[in-house]
């Protein structure tokens, strides 16, 4: 039996008919075509599917779509645009923090959650905040550098 749900996705309310076992990740990717969020394991182990759920990072492969009814979800597509990229997106590009890029959408979302809560994180805080997002390509060095630099950029633009 399908349920009709209403979710605020990247600032816009959307409705969908979903089966009870459908995950939020499937809803985003298969039904709404928001393929920016990635499927890396389907078991909550890799963080490729991270989205913001009411401002908190969650693994969307572990969240049932019905649970999102009435809630707010932000995916990588909601972070910025080509004309107005989020400082994190620019920093990831400029620092060479992305290689194959499969981890990047989830990584960016976790980093955004961190910077929203803590604009001036220490290196250790950054590493801890991103510990649930696996990356096989970069060794994380440039990712940590990029998050640091985005934090600085966001702070100076606020002033």
């Amino acid at each position, binding site marked *: 039996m399908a349920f009709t749900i209403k979710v605020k996705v990247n600032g816009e309310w959307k409705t969908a008919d979903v089966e009870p*076992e459908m995950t939020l990740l499937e809803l985003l*990717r298969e039904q709404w075509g*928001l*393929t*920016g*969020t*990635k*499927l*890396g*394991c*389907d*078991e909550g*182990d*890799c963080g*490729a599917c991270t989205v913001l759920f009411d401002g908190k990072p969650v693994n969307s492969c572990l969240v049932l779509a019905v649970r999102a009814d009435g809630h707010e979800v932000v*995916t*990588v*597509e909601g*972070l*910025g*645009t*080509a004309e107005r*990229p989020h400082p*994190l*997106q620019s920093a*990831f*590009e*400029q620092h*060479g923090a*992305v*290689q*194959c*890029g*499969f*981890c*990047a*959408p989830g990584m*960016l979302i976790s980093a955004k959650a961190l910077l929203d809560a803590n604009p001036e994180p220490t290196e250790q805080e950054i590493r801890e905040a991103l510990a649930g997002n*696996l*990356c*096989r*390509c970069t060794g994380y060095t440039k990712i940590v550098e990029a998050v640091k630099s985005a934090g600085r950029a966001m702070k100076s633009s606020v002033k």
Partner: protein
Amino acid sequence: MERDVIRKVPLVKPGEPGMIVEEAPTEELAGYPSVGRRIPRRDTIFQVLGQLKYINDLSFPGMLYAKVLRSRYAHARILRVDVSKALEVPGVVAAITADDIPVNSFGPSLQDQPVLAKDKVRHMGDGIAAVAAVSEQIAEEALEKIVVEYEPLPVVLDPLEAMREDAPRIHEPRSNIYWEWHIRKGDVEKALAEAHLVVQERYRTQMVEHVSMETHSSIAMWDAGGRLTVWCTVGRITLARTDLARILQVPVSRVRVVSTQLGGNFGGKNEITIEPVLAILAKKTGRPVKGTYSRKEEFIASTTRHPFIMEYTSGVTAEGRIIARKVRLIADGGAYCSWSETTLGKATILSAGPYDIPNIALDGYVVYTNKPMTGAMRGFGAPQVCFAYESHMDTIAHRLGMDPLQIRLLNAYDEGSISATGQILHSVALKKTLLAAAERFGWEVKER
């Protein structure tokens, strides 16, 4: 040969005195010279916006989803496969077995791998049957309805055991040892007899997986003219096309293989996996068919890194010069050859280390076991032998009371050194790297 001159010319700005400059082709002149510059990857902007399309982000109208039934045993005979019950599941459109495959074998060196196992399974990642359905979930459920009768066979997991004459043969009647490499230079036995010190050790490494964050994914579709297009996460499209054409028994020109950006490879996406299954299902149903590996399938049904057993014997002078090295490598080659020939070859060639050693005997063997396939993985056997030869170097240094850096500098290859295979080496920067790393690290030489 002389170095190419990469001219670091001053930037020319339009209207600069003395220069007749018209419109520059870009608004940005900062792109010169091009080589040596820290330019961001050109796809990154699409990646960070979530816009870059990986294979699993693509779909076509009417597309079906495929799933493969994997073996319940690591080694068994298949007595019977029956897919009829799976076909009754609503939403299932087609099911195939080994009987549907025109040429049921492939592999880059030995064509010893079936697309779907027919008489026998050799590891738990072997596929036996596949279904195409309107959703992944339905395909998955239908797999449970497939009936397979097995006759279990003794399982061999240890490569040393697999090498024994009386071991169960995984590819009967052939021996389990399926490739060998041998390199000889000088007279190793004589040099060992003359050495001041002889050190003998045995090292082992484990099986590991590439763990690309993106799992294998492909879509197959035939056009009305009988041409097949496969969109896939394969890093070697030319080889994939050859393999697919051979399996499907169509001319290579009727197969088109397209890739986009891969979500990691590391050697794990260098050959076809599920693509022939998708192509056959697509042909049967007349619809595009997609197949995406689960994380578990990545581990059991794609290639992995060869575990190695490595025996090292070295003869050294009192001053620390290595005058003889004997190496015996045994690679656990998993159930199928895949890139084992190359892996073992590179491992054997590199196994004496980057050292000027006049007397060398290197032997490499790779053997079948009932484990997942071992194939190409970043380093092709080099990380394994490097672990052995560099641990061994430290043992030798320790036994002689030498500093680890010193013994390496003493034996290291230099410009013009002759390799284990007799090649004159050029562009040898080994000592430069030793010294640069030691300096940055703050390495203090300690001798006893």
